[in-house]
């Protein structure tokens, strides 16, 4: 556990003073997990609200503005309603898998959050294969989607789930390769190390041309990974009802919905960490010494950058029309993948010839 802010240190010491070491560390892990759960359940709800507001503004509407000031409690009320709803299901559904699927999706989404360096000392789990861990976890989510679509015993759900499988497996490759391009320049998979490297300039600046190409590919593939428009043929409303979660209701539906938004946050957070220097402030601000005075301000920078990228993804969603399945696969296998491989070689050359830009 890497949280060493003074308040957590006090709790840490107090826990270890009143109980044996093993019990104390388990208690500590549970506490941290609960804190993360609470924060990100609420954050996910507010991302839904943000999406609705941003969508409204793109379409010259006003958006939710009735519940609470400026509609701020709208999604809370929605969640409350979903909790109180009956959990329906189909008669011939595979009950065990049907009930299991939402947890797959939400747990894999929440697990990925553990490794992000929100600020220097606010990182729950700093493993040395951070990027690999993120890649691995984010591909578990698709298992939940496939299981959910299969066990619903509904053709729409099944088609949606299969499309999701095709899409995620294809685009996983692009996400992986574009991150690998950045790993070439950072020289480490550990997220805190990657941030450390960026103290000499964000990686998107350090790696200039190939880094920008990698970022573009990452954004395209990341949007596809989260099953959002223009790659939302998984839950294409006009064709498939609601896609893989057609048969889900109440809180199980809410899990899928929340997981989608947390996944969006995760994709943006990975981009922030790998391309935009995570919690580091912009280089021209370092001379003011704000970061030294208040180390916690890194959270603001991290969230600011992440939300900017989230906004970019929302901008995509409310601008571009949905791709057909063959266009989707053409884009990945004929364009993104070869470009990505070329880009990887280019980045390797640049790192080898020492052509990176460093401050």
């Amino acid at each position: 556990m890497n949280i060493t802010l003074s308040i957590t240190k006090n709790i840490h010491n107090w826990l270890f003073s009143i109980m044996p070491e093993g019990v104390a560390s388990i208690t500590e892990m549970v506490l941290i997990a609960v804190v993360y759960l609470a924060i990100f359940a609420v954050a996910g709800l507010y991302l839904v609200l943000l999406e609705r507001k941003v969508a409204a503004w793109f379409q010259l509407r006003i958006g939710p503005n009735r519940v609470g000031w400026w509609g701020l409690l709208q999604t809370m009320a929605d969640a409350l309603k979903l909790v109180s709803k009956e959990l329906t299901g189909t008669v011939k559904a595979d009950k065990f898998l049907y009930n299991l699927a939402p947890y797959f999706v939400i747990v894999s989404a929440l697990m990925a959050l553990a490794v992000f360096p929100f600020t220097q000392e606010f990182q729950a789990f700093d493993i040395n294969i951070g990027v690999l861990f993120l890649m691995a976890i984010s591909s578990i989510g698709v298992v939940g989607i496939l299981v959910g679509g299969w066990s619903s015993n509904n053709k729409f759900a099944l088609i949606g789930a299969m499309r999701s499988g095709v899409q995620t497996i294809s685009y996983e490759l692009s996400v992986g390769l574009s991150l690998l391009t950045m790993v070439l320049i950072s020289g480490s998979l550990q997220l805190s190390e990657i941030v450390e490297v960026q103290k000499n300039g964000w990686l998107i600046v350090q790696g200039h041309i190939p880094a920008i190409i990698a970022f573009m590919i990452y954004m395209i593939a990341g949007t596809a990974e989260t099953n959002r428009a223009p790659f939302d043929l998984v839950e294409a409303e006009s064709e498939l009802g609601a896609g893989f979660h057609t048969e889900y209701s109440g809180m199980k539906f809410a899990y899928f919905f929340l997981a989608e938004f947390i996944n969006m946050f995760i994709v943006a957070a990975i981009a922030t960490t790998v391309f935009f220097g995570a919690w580091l402030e912009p280089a021209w601000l370092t001379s003011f010494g704000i970061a030294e005075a208040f180390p916690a301000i890194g959270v603001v920078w991290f969230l600011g950058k992440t939300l900017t990228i989230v906004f970019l993804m929302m901008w995509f969603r409310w601008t571009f029309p949905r791709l057909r399945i063959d266009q989707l696969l053409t884009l990945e296998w004929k364009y993104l993948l070869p470009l990505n491989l070329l880009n990887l070689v280019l980045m390797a050359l640049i790192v080898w010839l020492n052509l990176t830009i460093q401050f």
Partner: protein
Amino acid sequence: MSYFGDIAKGIKTLLTGMSVTGKYFLTSRKGAITQQYPDNRETLKMFERFRGEVVMPHDESNEHRCTGCQKCEIACPNGTIEIIWDRQVDPATGKKKKMIDQHIYHLGMCTMCGLCIEACPTDAIVWAQNFENSVYDRSYLTKVLNQPGSKVKAGIED
């Protein structure tokens, strides 16, 4: 190399689309088209082409323009309009003349097709822009369009 040309063209068209929506996003505060209906009930004005219900305008001396020709009644595809009329002696000329007693309009049956208004040769009936038409009893939806004691405006038939 149409391969790279395609990529460049793709990126360019995507950016064009994003700039369009981006402009909408930036002007959304001023240009919002949403009407916050129950709040702006006092000021909300429906546009001219809106088809609320059929009304018969009366001028200040309680005169309408309906001659009772029944063209609207015939034009109506589902019997929404019923005209009760008789022949009365016109006090001005002393001749017997067709006059409406009641111009009955069943709002509950009306499909807002507008054929009656097109058919009317004297523009006696027009569209109103009101839309709060819900009532607690179906019988309220049957309306008599001409006001009690009203008469046809002189010179309409000519």
